[in-house]
């Protein structure tokens, strides 16, 4: 088609003609490929399904659904152009990174391997699905204004809960790693790209596809299992569960690949002088998250393969009457599930500890301790999974062990609090929007964490397991923790990413409404749980009606508050477009020393790092990096 610009000279990047853009691989062809693939796969699947004993002669068509989704996935990726490169390699052609050679709007709608483009694509995708899942939450709360399933019927209610929980956890586990991780990690460690740019793009499109596949569960009859997908309920459910399984598998693959990419990048791509103790704490947060992702996601994938085989090939992994066991799913799911919840926590720790020093104008207090805390959390999180199964009767005699390890996680987590307190000591705090969100993180997460300690105590958990107390606990840690941190991160880094100002006034309005209504929504639910309200029910004891109506109203206000974020983004970034200076917060870390928005190649020359990122108040401090080193250094920092 066009001549390929050589990447060793950034000046010659070319833009393609409109015709070239439309005819080349892009999202349109991806969608077409996905749909055609689904139809073809489904058709083949019905033929195969007729030969499988359990399926012939029933209305079950899981083989067809799975095969449709599988072929559809390949169609989608093919339409986006993901197979051009592997096919080329199979023909023996050398490695190139041609997908990167473009500028202009179109690259946002196609396979692009520029980490900054992928970051923005990720951000849009994740926010979109976050709002979809949030909208589901609004419908859940709408139904719970009635104590007897009058608004939404039970089946649809369960589907809503499942969609909300699964979508939120899927999207939020990629919610920081994807957008902020891909965008910022190279900038923060002084690299021009991530280690595996094509895999980076793949993870993005798999995430997008996973969101869409999950939503397709609605068309397939919904699913009754919540986000935990317990077997044998999942064996029994209708086609919607296939969408749940398939999308969760896609996310699992995507997460593991993101983890591999981030970790490799951090190990091999650091600029000279970016020694281990100069790596920004945010990058450490993502690195530890990546460890969890690489090791935990495959377990989820394995469990899903088993569930899928149970449903399609008639195996009996989870059927106790046929030599299987439901406990097998419970074990595997939570072996993944608990690290998963820390995949949701660690990036938050990273963000708030990155932001606090900037607005406290002080070095991060206890950097090594913070890193140690993160590693401690990551390690321990593999040893606690049966605290979700305290009353299940599985290994009941190991409960003291799991109680102890679970409570032990409070120690490394507490270190994050200590770091924050040390950093705030005699600080010069500026109450900017990111800072407000970061401070609120500690307020909320404290409540969430302490309630977790209640749950980890077996006698207490006997009352609260499966009740709204658990639900309040994890909304305090996830919504109050991770999402508040994500908001802090967005308000902090969007000016760098877009080069535009965010409205401070709307930001503060967003913060205060979100903070207040978040707490009024979820705090009363601790009480609801203790008073005996089970989770995942659309009808409940009438004595709890007033409480639930209050919570629902608060939740709607919380939803309105989230809309302020949208308004702010549209107003500031699309309508007003007021230019922001390169370093509005006067931060010292590397990414803020670059122009905004960041040029295609990030760094003119690979910088040489001279100091850590938090030297606030240090006398005679040197600039963090020499951005135009005279000697082209070749050694990666050690």
């Amino acid at each position: 088609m066009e001549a390929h610009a050589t990447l060793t000279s950034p000046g010659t990047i070319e833009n393609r003609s409109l015709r070239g853009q439309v005819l080349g691989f892009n999202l349109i062809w991806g969608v077409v490929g996905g749909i055609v693939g689904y139809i073809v796969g489904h058709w083949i699947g019905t033929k195969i399904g007729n030969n499988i004993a359990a399926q012939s002669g029933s209305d079950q068509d899981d083989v067809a659904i799975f095969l449709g989704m599988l072929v559809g996935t390949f169609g989608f990726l093919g339409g986006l152009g993901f197979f051009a490169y592997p096919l080329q390699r199979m023909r023996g052609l050398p490695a190139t990174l041609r997908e990167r050679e473009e500028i202009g709007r179109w690259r946002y709608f196609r396979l692009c391997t520029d980490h900054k483009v992928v970051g923005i694509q990720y951000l849009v995708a994740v926010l979109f699905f976050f709002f979809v899942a949030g909208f589901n939450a609004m419908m859940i709360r709408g139904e719970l204004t009635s104590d007897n399933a009058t608004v939404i019927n039970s089946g649809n209610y369960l589907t809503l809960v499942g969609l909300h929980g699964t979508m939120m956890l899927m999207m939020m586990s990629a919610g920081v790693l994807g957008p902020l991780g891909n965008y910022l990690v190279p900038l923060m460690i002084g690299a021009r790209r991530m280690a595996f740019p094509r895999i980076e793009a793949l993870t993005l499109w798999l995430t997008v596809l996973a969101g869409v596949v999950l939503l397709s569960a609605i068309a397939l009859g919904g699913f009754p299992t919540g986000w935990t997908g317990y077997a044998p309920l999942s064996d029994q459910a209708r086609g919607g569960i296939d969408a749940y399984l398939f999308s969760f598998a896609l996310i699992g693959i995507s997460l593991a690949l993101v983890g591999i990419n981030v970790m490799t990048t951090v190990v091999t791509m650091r600029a000279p002088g970016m020694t281990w103790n100069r790596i920004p704490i945010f990058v450490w947060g993502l690195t530890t998250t990546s460890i969890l992702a690489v090791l935990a996601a495959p377990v989820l994938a394995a469990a899903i393969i088993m569930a899928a085989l149970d449903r399609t090939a008639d195996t009996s992994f989870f059927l106790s009457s046929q030599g299987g066991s439901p406990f097998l799913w419970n074990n595997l799911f939570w072996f993944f599930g608990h690290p998963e919840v820390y995949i949701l926590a660690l990036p938050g720790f990273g963000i708030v500890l990155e932001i606090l020093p900037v607005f406290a104008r002080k070095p991060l207090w206890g950097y090594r301790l913070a890193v140690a805390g993160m590693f401690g959390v990551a390690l321990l999180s593999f040893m606690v999974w049966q605290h979700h199964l305290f009353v299940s009767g599985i290994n009941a005699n190991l409960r003291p062990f799991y109680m102890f390890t679970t409570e032990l996680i409070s120690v490394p987590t507490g270190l994050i609090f200590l770091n924050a307190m040390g950093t705030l000591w005699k600080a010069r705090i500026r109450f900017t929007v990111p800072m407000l969100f970061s401070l609120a993180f500690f307020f909320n997460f404290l409540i969430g964490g302490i309630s977790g300690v209640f749950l980890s105590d077996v006698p207490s958990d006997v009352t609260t397991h499966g009740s709204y107390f658990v639900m309040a606990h994890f909304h305090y840690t996830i919504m109050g923790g991770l999402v508040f941190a994500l908001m802090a991160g967005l308000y902090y880094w969007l000016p760098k990413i877009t080069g535009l100002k965010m409205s401070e006034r709307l930001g503060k309005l967003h913060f205060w409404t979100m903070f207040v209504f978040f707490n009024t929504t979820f705090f009363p639910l601790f009480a609801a749980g203790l008073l005996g309200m089970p989770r995942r029910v659309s009808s409940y004891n009438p004595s709890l009606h007033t409480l639930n109506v209050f919570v629902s109203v608060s939740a709607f206000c919380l939803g309105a508050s989230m809309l302020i974020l949208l308004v702010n983004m549209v107003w500031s970034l699309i309508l007003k477009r007021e230019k922001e200076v390169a370093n509005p917060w006067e931060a010292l870390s590397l990414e803020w020393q670059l122009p905004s928005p960041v040029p295609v190649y990030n760094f003119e020359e690979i910088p040489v790092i001279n100091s850590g990122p938090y030297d606030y108040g240090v006398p005679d401090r040197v600039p963090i990096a020499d951005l135009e080193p005279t000697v082209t250094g070749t050694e990666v920092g050690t």
Partner: protein
Amino acid sequence: MSAAAAPGGTGAGFGEPRHGARIAVAWAILTVIAVPLVIWVAGPHIPPYSGHSTQSSDQHTVNVVLLTAAVPVIALIWVYFGYAISVFRQRGPEIVDGPPLTADPRIQITWLVVTSVMVLALAVYGTIGLYNDSHGAGGGQGPNPLSTPPAGSTPLQVQVIGQQWLWTFRYPGYGGVETATLEIPANRWVAFHVTSLDVDHSFWAYELGVKADAIPGSDNVAYVKATNTGQFQVRCAELCGLWHGHMNSYGRVVNAGAFSSWIAARQQQYSAITKTLPPYSKVYYPDPIRRAG
């Protein structure tokens, strides 16, 4: 604790107020006020309410103890953050850097030791609650419970069978009779053997403080000793499909005499049906229903 309240205590200049001391005092005052409030004012209102069974009474105590232990931690964080936010501010338009303090290892170690000790204490306390009171705190313990009622007591065996979406209760000591409502005698140990015929459920007798998952192919034992007569709710605490929210029932705690006559009446009433039931077994293996709706 108070040592941890003043990280970076070095670097206090002349004329500066003694922030550390102020925080420590505020924290101490708050704790001293809040702890009794939590124990004696809020405490009695924390569910589950005591008095229905040994188990729910214990769980109530545990919750009060945990909350009391949490108060100093929460108070410390709130006081510290509140103080920092109101005192350590940027004043004036110019951005001023704070003192570049390094982390004092003594503070770090103190904090680590204090939190570790607290955690250890919590774990020991929880384990004692689980085993020493010899009933596993009312939670499901699986087929071979380690924590059993005191020797000599002969628990009443009741099998709890979950199925979409109802509960059935079977009394193996009384010819394996099955009933749709649950009755147990007061002041006698009861052993619930919880199992399921289809998907996972969870047997939750809220007032009794009993929760045990009902898993197909598994015999999950939970003990309770009801202390008062009266009604209690039974519901399902594990998502089991469409009518999970409606899988409710009631049970009654009655005195021993009333129980004997009740169960005798049931045995008679259901004798014809009992014969057609599968023989009593710890678990049942009905054919898997792949699609139930």
